[in-house]
């Protein structure tokens, strides 16, 4: 630690160029905004767009340059020091394919949210300088979050992300719902952080280090600590579960989603949720890397101990329960919603449940299936939220009743929304179908892994996938409820203005992407392929 030179730090900065670009843009926006009158402050959005696009470009140019952490059984000590990923800043940050992928999703999602903010009428009349500053701050924090290789970095980035989002949720300060949502978010968020820190203190006690990959491997190799591992993971997941709105940590989500400005709702549902998941995956990654690796026979014993740890600590059971509870509660409560933002909030809770299915299986395929799902989830949810923004611009309301017969006034708007909804349900011919198919097939594959049917493992996994399938059927009801209001009722007399061409093209791009990803999903698959070439 003592021999860190300036040269090394500058060298390490190469790992975080995208983040540096975002932070630089952030500073530029603050300064520029000081010289802009209030009515011209929306212009800062263009700068935010440019900054995010540049960061995306840099990221894309070196995507997947560093491979993922992989535990070498033959030589555990050196593998921790020399394996694939690039570490920087005294192992505080790491750059690997996992972080590259998530940063890509974060930057892309935020880019879209900036466009949403420029098109949304809800935010009109507020200053935009701080708004974009906070948004860029969140995405930078999220990028550091998924790059953390140390629990200190993880906690600090998570808190930065939370603070930015608290303010963004309450950005419409003259709106009572918005202020209430912000307060609720803060209260829940601080408790969740406390819970997570408590869990981390146990981990530190067991492992003696805050280095994520080292401590997880150290803890895993100690078979006697199975129960403590379960407790620790439970507490950490409790803290991060707040971000992904997993049941029972979801109570804030509907109110916050409803109260927040709609672009921020989209940010919370897509980007912030993925950030929460990315942190969970970052912490759990050593377990995946270990259990999924193909290993020579002589070290099977070590591997057996690690796999045994996953089993004795009941991690699959923990995530089974979380997953089932999350998808079922999310879907059942969504059935009764009449506000489209609330409805999408519960729908996103249910989707967190589907993704959690992947954490019951510890192999490469499940990790890749989850990443794939994040990718399509971003597309279909951003598409749906953008339709909501356009609808709110037109009707000024987020109640479903206000959208009666919209399909007959704006057929294209409806078709785009319909494609997003079908994709959210998981029906072909859409990307959502492929995402769900991959998750289902991972769990089905795990059910059949020991060969027999009617074994406990089989029932454990197959029950999960059947529950998920039933949930999908339930979710169909409320997604189609949105379509039903728009199509099956006659339009109100009040004139709906036509959708601006810019928004129309943007929406069409979402709908087409969803269809194209379905038709040819191999490119996305290769993007999420963390192991192998």
């Amino acid at each position: 630690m003592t021999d860190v030179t300036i040269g090394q730090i500058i060298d390490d900065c190469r790992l975080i160029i995208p983040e540096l670009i975002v932070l630089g843009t952030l500073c530029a926006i603050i300064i520029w905004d000081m010289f802009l009158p209030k009515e011209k402050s929306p212009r800062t959005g263009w700068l935010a767009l440019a900054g995010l696009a540049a960061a995306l470009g840099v990221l894309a140019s070196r995507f997947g340059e560093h491979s993922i952490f992989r535990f070498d059984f033959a030589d555990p000590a050196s593998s921790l020091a020399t394996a694939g990923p690039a570490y920087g800043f005294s192992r505080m940050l790491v750059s690997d394919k996992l972080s590259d992928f998530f940063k890509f999703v974060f930057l892309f999602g935020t880019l879209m949210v900036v466009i949403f903010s420029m098109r949304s009428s809800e935010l009109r009349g507020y200053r935009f300088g701080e708004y974009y500053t906070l948004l860029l701050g969140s995405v930078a924090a999220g990028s550091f979050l998924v790059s953390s290789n140390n629990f200190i970095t993880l906690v600090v980035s998570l808190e930065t992300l939370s603070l930015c989002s608290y303010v963004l949720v309450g950005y419409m300060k003259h709106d009572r719902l918005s202020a209430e949502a912000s307060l609720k978010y803060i209260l829940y968020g601080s408790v969740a952080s406390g819970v997570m820190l408590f869990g981390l203190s146990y981990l530190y006690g067991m492992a003696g280090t805050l280095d994520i990959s080292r401590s997880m491997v150290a803890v895993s190799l100690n078979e006697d600590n199975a129960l403590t591992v379960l407790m620790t993971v439970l507490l950490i997941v409790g803290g991060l579960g707040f971000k992904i709105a997993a049941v029972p940590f979801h109570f804030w989500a509907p109110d916050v989603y409803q109260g927040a400005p709609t672009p921020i709702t989209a940010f919370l549902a897509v980007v912030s949720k993925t950030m929460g998941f990315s942190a969970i995956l970052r912490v759990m990654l050593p377990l995946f890397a270990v259990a999924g690796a193909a290993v020579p026979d002589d070290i099977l014993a070590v591997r057996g101990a690690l796999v045994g740890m996953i089993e004795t600590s009941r991690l699959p059971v923990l995530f089974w329960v979380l997953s089932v509870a999350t998808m079922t509660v999310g879907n059942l409560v969504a059935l009764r919603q009449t506000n489209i933002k609330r409805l999408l909030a519960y729908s996103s809770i249910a989707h967190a449940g589907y993704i959690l299915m992947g954490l019951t299986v510890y192999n490469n395929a499940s990790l890749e299936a989850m990443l794939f799902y994040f990718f399509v989830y971003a597309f279909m949810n951003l598409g749906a939220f953008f339709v909501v923004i356009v609808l709110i611009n037109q009707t000024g309301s987020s109640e479903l009743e206000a959208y009666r017969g919209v399909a007959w006034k704006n057929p294209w708007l409806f078709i785009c929304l319909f494609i997003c909804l079908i994709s959210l349900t998981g029906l072909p011919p859409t990307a959502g179908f492929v995402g769900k198919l991959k998750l289902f097939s991972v769990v089905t594959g795990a059910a059949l892994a020991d060969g027999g049917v009617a074994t406990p493992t089989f029932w454990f996994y197959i029950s999960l996938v059947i529950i998920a399938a039933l949930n999908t059927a339930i979710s169909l009801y409320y997604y189609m409820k949105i379509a039903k209001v728009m199509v099956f009722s006659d339009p109100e007399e009040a004139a709906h203005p036509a959708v601006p061409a810019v928004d129309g093209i943007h929406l069409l791009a979402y709908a087409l992407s969803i269809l194209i990803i379905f038709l040819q999903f191999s490119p996305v698959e290769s993007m999420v392929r963390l192991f192998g070439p």
Partner: protein
Amino acid sequence: MVENNSNLLLLVTLAPLATSLVVIFAPRVTQAGFARVYALVGSIVTLLLSLGFISGMRADPAAYSSFMSVPWIEDWGIRFTLGLDGLSGMLVLLTNLLIVVSILASWTAITDRAREFYACLLVLQTGIIGTFLALDLFVFYIFWELMLIPLYLLIGIFGSSNRIYATMKFFLYTMAGSLLMLLGILTLYFKTAPLLDDGATFSIIRLVQVSSQLPIETQTIIFFAFAIAFSIKIPLFPFHTWLPDAHTEAPTAGSIVLAGVLLKTGVYGLIRFAIPLFPAVAEAYAPLFLALAVTAIIYGALTALVQEDMKRLVAYSSVSHMGFIVLGLFSFREEAISGAALQMLSHGISTGGLFYCVGLLYERRHTRLLSEFGGLAYNMKIYAVLTVIIVLSSVGLPGLNGFVGEFLILLGTFQVAPVAAAIATLGVILAAVYLLRMTQLALFGKLDREENKALTDLNAREISGLAALIFFALWIGLYPRPFLKLVEPTSRSLAELVEPGAGELVSDRVASIPANSPSQSDNRGQIDGAAGR
């Protein structure tokens, strides 16, 4: 032979989809605009194109006379595989015929939002054709789901008063079934992967070769995953409750297509996928299916007996008739399976016709209650004549189509399950009772209502639609041999799969003409050959 006619195959599948795009952009000149003209022309073109299959089908109904297979998603072993043999060709022709009829039936009934209506109908057609032609389980599943959405819109937008309830019920029922099937498909995919030397595949042709090597419990589970999905679609008692609601609320065209071909996709799935994949399981559980089929026959008939709503009556008669088809299928006698396949065609024609007849009255009087009618034969003479013919064909009068199939089914079933056959025969008698009751109450008796006196007889368009159906009803009734020859190889191979060595040529027995057909080569061998190249 491989890749033979593959362009035509793709053309027939996609022509309706292309037409639907033309229809949706049709200018809105008059009330129904050009949409109906475009749709009619498009559907006739599709019908004519599909006539091109006939020569190939007749030459060798056992083989896939048209076959195409192009790689789609290579990592998963998914190939876009379509193939056409005697059975699927017959059903595709039926589909295309009924779509033309249903467009004629909607000519004046649907004037509001006609473009959307016809576009949905045509997308539905593509879904159905694809379902009948797909030879890759993944492709099959996608077409299978593709049928769902247009029908949802057709019933939900254009249905009668209680349509929302009916669509939701229909949608949830079938969706739950298809998700179960998806899990079955995945399980099959994973379990067969180690058995295949050329990698995992969804190709039904390859899967059939190895599926019997799976452990019997695995086979049972997958079989039921398929069988439940198909039973919901058929619908087999006790999964039938969605059908009367969906039929009653659907517009006439929806009912025609639903009863005429959609229900057949369930039976087709059993014949093409579930039974050939798992013959041992199908045989073991045949008594269960026979019992359910007999229950459906009697229950459907008794319920139809007391219906006041004509559409509900016809819907319950469908439950009863579909019971016959399942009965014939699970008796695993060659003649009974041939009868079942022929009955699929007959039922499509008769029940499609019945729904058309009811629809014609509904368009004139806007009621379907039997008590509202009476004595229509006095002022709607042509209508009465055509309706009576259709009713008799559905009842199973010798000389018309219904008789041949039912006779063969009962003949075959009697040899293996005499009790089931005896009870099922009661169903034939009951069919005469409820259908003739309907005829009597609607057409005969006193013409005592003022509204009914004013009703006009059928015009040329309406006659032509019904006449087309009656033409086929007579053809099948008088000379079923060409149709039986088409389905014979399929039924022989099914019967042999379950009970090796059973069966002689059915068409010979019926037509008592000595067979000199050279096409008795082994069906399985042909299929393997097609896959190999």
